[in-house]
């Protein structure tokens, strides 16, 4: 029973990170109908930036917020420069640009920060204040941070005029420009936000997985699975999907197939959801059949 609870809590902690990545993916998908394959590598790169800030003496939380800001601006700039020109191009061209970005960010991480594995600090105490038997201090802290981020994003979209404008631009870009919204800037903002969320996910993951250029590659896959499971057009579905995937991963890993095949689990989840329940658990839009 103890071991089981341990897996559940650990699964929830990991799940919160998959939820964040899944949310970032859905945000970009909702507004552009594109899947950002480069999401993971951008998050890794941001985490490296945080690492080097801390290495150079900055306090953790200052580095944290500064990195989130840099990631936001970075995401915005990437959309303006690289994504906008191919907005109306065929899907294949878009996918190739995303893959190109994936590769460039990964290469930059390796080039600038080299490939040796680095330790990344956790700002949380080692022992958790709550349920210390089942969850570590860092896991509790990262759960708290990601939930806080998700809450802020929710409030932003629900109650601010810009949040409303972004939702409108994502749902119906033509009508949005007819009420005076600069749709293409809304897309850029969406990218900035998604990038910032990814950075948070990376910084929460790094203390556990250690920091090297391949940090987020596997996480990206889980983020995809979470987003698909929740319904690719439903941001809150992605969040719930993330927690489900996190817990499932741990339970299956501990009791069924061992921890070696985790990526295969992600693959099966992805292909399975796409073929058996393409709308996910909570989605509404039907995925276009070719």
């Amino acid at each position: 029973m103890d071991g089981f609870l341990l897996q559940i809590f650990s699964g929830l902690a990991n799940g919160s990170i998959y939820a964040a990545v899944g949310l970032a993916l859905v945000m970009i998908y909702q507004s552009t109908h594109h899947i950002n394959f480069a999401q993971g590598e951008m998050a890794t790169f941001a985490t490296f930036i945080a690492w080097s800030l801390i290495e150079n003496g900055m306090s953790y939380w200052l580095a944290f917020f500064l990195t989130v800001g840099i990631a936001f601006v970075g995401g915005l700039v990437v959309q303006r420069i690289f994504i906008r020109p191919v907005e109306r191009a065929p899907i294949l061209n878009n996918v190739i640009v995303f893959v190109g970005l994936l590769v460039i960010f990964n290469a930059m991480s390796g080039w600038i920060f080299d490939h040796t594995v680095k330790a990344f600090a956790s700002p949380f105490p080692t022992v958790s204040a709550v349920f210390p038997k089942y969850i570590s201090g860092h896991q509790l802290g990262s759960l708290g941070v990601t939930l806080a981020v998700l809450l802020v994003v929710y409030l932003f979209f629900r109650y601010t005029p810009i949040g409303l404008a972004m939702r409108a631009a994502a749902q119906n870009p033509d009508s949005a420009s007819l009420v005076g919204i600069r749709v293409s800037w809304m897309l850029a903002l969406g990218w900035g936000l998604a990038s910032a969320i990814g950075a948070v996910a990376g910084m929460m993951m790094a203390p556990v997985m250690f920091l090297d250029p391949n940090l987020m590659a596997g996480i990206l896959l889980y983020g995809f699975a979470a987003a698909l499971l929740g319904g690719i057009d439903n941001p809150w579905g992605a969040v719930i999907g993330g927690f489900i995937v996190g817990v499932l991963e741990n339970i299956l890993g501990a009791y069924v197939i061992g921890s070696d095949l985790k990526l295969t689990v992600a693959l099966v989840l992805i292909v399975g959801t796409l073929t058996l329940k393409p709308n996910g658990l909570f989605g509404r839009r039907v995925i276009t059949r070719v």
Partner: protein
Amino acid sequence: MNLLEVKNLNAWYGATQALFDVSFDLKQGGITTILGANGAGKTTTLRSMCQTVKTSGEVVFLGDRISGLATDKIVRMGMAHVPDGRGTFTDLTVEENLRLGAYSRKDKDAVSEDIEGVFEHFPRLKERLYQQAGTLSGGEQQMLAISRALMLRPKLLLLDEPSFGLAPLIVQEIFEIMRNINKTNGVSMLLVEQNASLALNLADHAYLLETGNVVLSGPAKDIRSDESVRRTYLGY
């Protein structure tokens, strides 16, 4: 100064040309209607005002050239467009749709005042304020679309086939309200309609389009009463 001046407007969808040297003027305060059969170019004309299609020629709005400007910029200059198909944000609530209509306004305090004004014209929207726009009936969505456009406090309101797909009683109701809006708010209107008799009853001036060319223009009253014109061009 004329509200709107259009000179030698040509418009294309890709390589297909839809409008050929269309010219007309709108005076402030009036209601003008553009009539014509399916495919005559009526919707294209409205889209050319907002620059959502490729155009050449001159469009001048309140003295400023707007040809080649971005749609959102033109909207912010005071031109509101109720597109064909209504264009409501179906996944958002009625209230959110209205708030979005006022998105570009700087005078945020007057917005709630204007929402109240909208309710006076369309009381049904008040009842459905927090409902999802997609669940409203066709008529109510049309009311919402017009209200959203009014939230801009526009100087010119473009309406694309507001009667489309609606029951005759609702259409009468909406057209009456539009006449009201024109009188009380002083909003000028450019109305595109397939239903010629309805439009001619409401408008002051009318233009008739045939395959992208203006073939007839004159005061609505005269066209309405000229039987031969009506029979030849408007089918009634």
